[in-house]
């Protein structure tokens, strides 16, 4: 799916969105807020790129969307993760763990900087 590290950020965004949706159907702003709170505002989603990313996920069949009413009774578009989306998230997550693990291992090896 992802074969170049140049895609890393975009891929990361996809992982974050899919992960956000695991908690249930949400609208775009909800996804952004969830990421902010979960990461204590460390990972701030670039809001501009959120919506194009959602379209791409939809094209790939990983999420579906539907119009509905928001918590404050406004018309909003809600996104739901699909079965294919979950599978994809699982695969991406394992790639991520291996990658992060490898980097951590390198950083922890002697001579240690910590």
């Amino acid at each position, binding site marked *: 799916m992802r074969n170049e590290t140049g895609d890393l950020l975009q891929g990361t965004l996809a992982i974050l969105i899919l992960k956000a949706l695991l908690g249930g159907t949400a*609208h*775009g*702003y909800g996804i*952004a*807020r969830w990421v902010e709170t979960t990461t204590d505002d460390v990972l701030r989603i*670039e*809001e*501009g790129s959120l*919506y*194009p990313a959602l*379209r791409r996920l939809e*094209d790939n069949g990983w999420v579906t969307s539907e*119009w509905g009413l*928001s918590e404050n009774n*406004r*018309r*909003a*578009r809600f996104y739901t993760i699909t079965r294919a989306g979950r599978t994809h998230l699982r695969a991406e997550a394992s790639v991520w763990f291996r990658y992060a693990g490898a980097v951590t291992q390198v950083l922890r090896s002697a001579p240690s900087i910590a």
Partner: protein
Amino acid sequence: MDADVDDELQFHLDMRARDYEARGLPSPDAREAAAERFGDVQGIGGALRAHDRRRERERQRKEYMSDLTNDLRYGLRAFGRAPAFTTVALLTIALGIGATTAIFSVVNGVILRPLPYAEPDRIVQVWMDNRRMGLKEDLHSWPNWADLREQNQVFSSMAAYAPGGFNITAGCRETECEPRRVAAAYATADLFEVLRIAPAMGRAFTPQETEPGRDGVVVISQGLWTDFFGADRNIIGRTVRLNGRERTVIGVMPPAVAFPSRDTDVWVPLAFSQEEKQFRSSFGLWAVARLKPGVEFSRAVTDLTTIGRRLEQQYAENRDLGVYLVPLPEQVVGRTVRTSLWVMLAAVGAVLLIACANVANLMLSRAAVREREISVRVALGAARTRLIRQLLTESVLLAVIGAALGVGLAWVGLRVLTGLAPADIPRLDQVRIDLRVLGVALGLAVVTGIAFGLAPALQSSRAAVGNALREGIRGGTSGRRAQRLRRTLVAAQIALVVVLLTGAGLLVRSFVRLQRVDLGFRPDNLLTMRLSLPGAKYGTPESRMGFFDALLDRTRQLPGVQGAAFIEDIFLTATPTSTNFAIDGREMTEEERGIEVPLDAVSSDYFRVMGIPLREGRTFTAADNRTAPPVVIVNENMARRFWPNERAVGKRFKYGSADSQAPFMTIVGVVADMRRTGFDAPVRYETFRPHTQRTVGSLTLVVRAAGDPLRLVPSIRAQLKSIDPDQPVFEVASMDQLLGSMVAQRRFSMALLGTFAALALVLGIIGVYGVTAYLVAQRTREVGVRLALGARPAQVVGMVVRQGMFVAGAGLAVGLAAAAAAGRLMTGLLYGVSPHDAWTLAAVTVVIGVATLAANWLPALRAAHVDPLTALRSE
């Protein structure tokens, strides 16, 4: 859709602003911060909108394709369930499209496909407009051509040429070959520039080679190169003998060059001497020219007409001679061929329409059967437009399959057609099924599919929607509206059949008229062949006379020969070698001085052998020899015109004008008129000289046989060979064949249009029968009620037939009116018959009347003989 994007983004911004406000920012700042945090709202919005639109298009395309495949699959299954309907419909469509495709490929090859020269529509045939003789397409003299070439501002090049023929003798390798006659053209070097053709091998001739003495060169055709010279790679530089003169082969033309005629095999320089180039009143040259880039044809006409007028004033010889231009493509395929081809295309189009109407009626009947199926689909929620689309997909599918079969039919048909076609339809070898023809066939399929499918589709979908709402109520397809549609279709079919029958009838009448024309001689058991003695070998009149006398003598001795004679040209071309003449002791009017007569030499018993009656005086005898006083025989037409109330025999005239040096000739006989320019051309004024006093090198031998004249050919050839083994004969044919080829185009048009008319009639009658049978079947219950209430079967028959004939009558009336209009387009193809010929129209009316009566009567009879009880129990 676009609004959705705005809503979604606005929602995000509002939510973010609300959060900021909750943290204590004042409202305007909160909004600003939210927007800032988001980034390029406009840009992202635009990208999303574009994305959504693309996605929507993709979705629609997918849906369309899947609908289409479903419809096609559904259609094929439906065809499979109704094999009888499918077979009949396919055959009908295949016939219609096949015939149309075949004729269109002929039109395409003969008319539409360009000539094999660069920018062929820039080439112009330049004629001399001979107002003296009413000949628009007459030939030029050299000075006349040279003046036009010199003075015009509109042509980039202009060539003169004259067709001819050669006996070609030397040349074959190894094996000794038969002497052969080839068609040739003498041409100025400009010809290759005008046509823009370069030889495939070697070179064309240069202007220097068109001077006498330096003109011993020849360019040969691809065909002659392959089958006479065995495709000899070293042909360039070889010597051949043409009419006894040696010439060097300098070039071989590319294939497909057919100029001036399809069979031209050699091109030699037109080399006039300085003296010959002064003869302003010797007309024998054709001319073609190429327009300069950017010059319109109309400007060329103006320019050349002006020059022509100037020449007229300048030279007495040019009086009443103008210039007439025709674009070459029009010249090559003449008006008659064009007209007849367009008429054929129109006719075959009418056949296709009739076929469409038949299929439409079939579809209507089938729609009635499928009413339940369609109602179910409507009940399941199919929209009407969706239903119409599905029905149309089915009919176009049907048409496309039919068209594929039709193209196959057309392929077979074309073989037959080009096999039967007369040789003088130009460019028939260009006819084939190419991409353009296939494109037209496919286009026809789609259009016809919609044409015969649309009305039934609208009809049955409307019915279905109605039925779905009011289940069990009979309506729709069998209802009043559908009946009216069917009757209209039938009436239209009959109208088209009437038009076609009328056209075919007019051609048949013309042809019969033509066959009844009194030719003025007995055409049975006559053999004709042409000979041309080369001047190099037979230079003197004595040698030529010696040859012909020997040939006549030996031919007469052959068993089965009743007589042999010759004449210069048995049939006259449109522009024969001719001259004006002056009558002894008479002041001739201006008009009379302009009249020309063909020059003709005949052997003494020509008239007896041909069976041309002598009206007055005598024919030539042995006493009319070289040294005897000059004598002449004229035809009745000439005698009547110039000596109306007196005996022509004994009167004298001479060729040329009154002051010419030619000797006066005494008329010794008057013979009956003979049709010498074809069946449909008027008889000319004619004069005949004894060959002893006018010896010629080229002539037609005429032999009257006791039986089949063609069986004499081998023995006559053998005699000829014993006199001169190098002398070929050509154009060997019986008179029946000659006359047949004269009417071949008419016969062909007649046969073709006749076939289409017959096809149309059969299809049309099937249509009438089918509709009446269907409508009667729909009314079985009503008929049963009537019979049960005491109606006699004859009354029932009368009712059904009356209704059917009313429709037929309407179709007939419309058809006759249309035929009258269409007939005017055919005027050029008719002979001795008015396009509104009462007999033809009456005959067509009778045929249509009888045929439709029969087609209505049969179903009516069947209806009248149903058992009332069965009828009432039906349904």
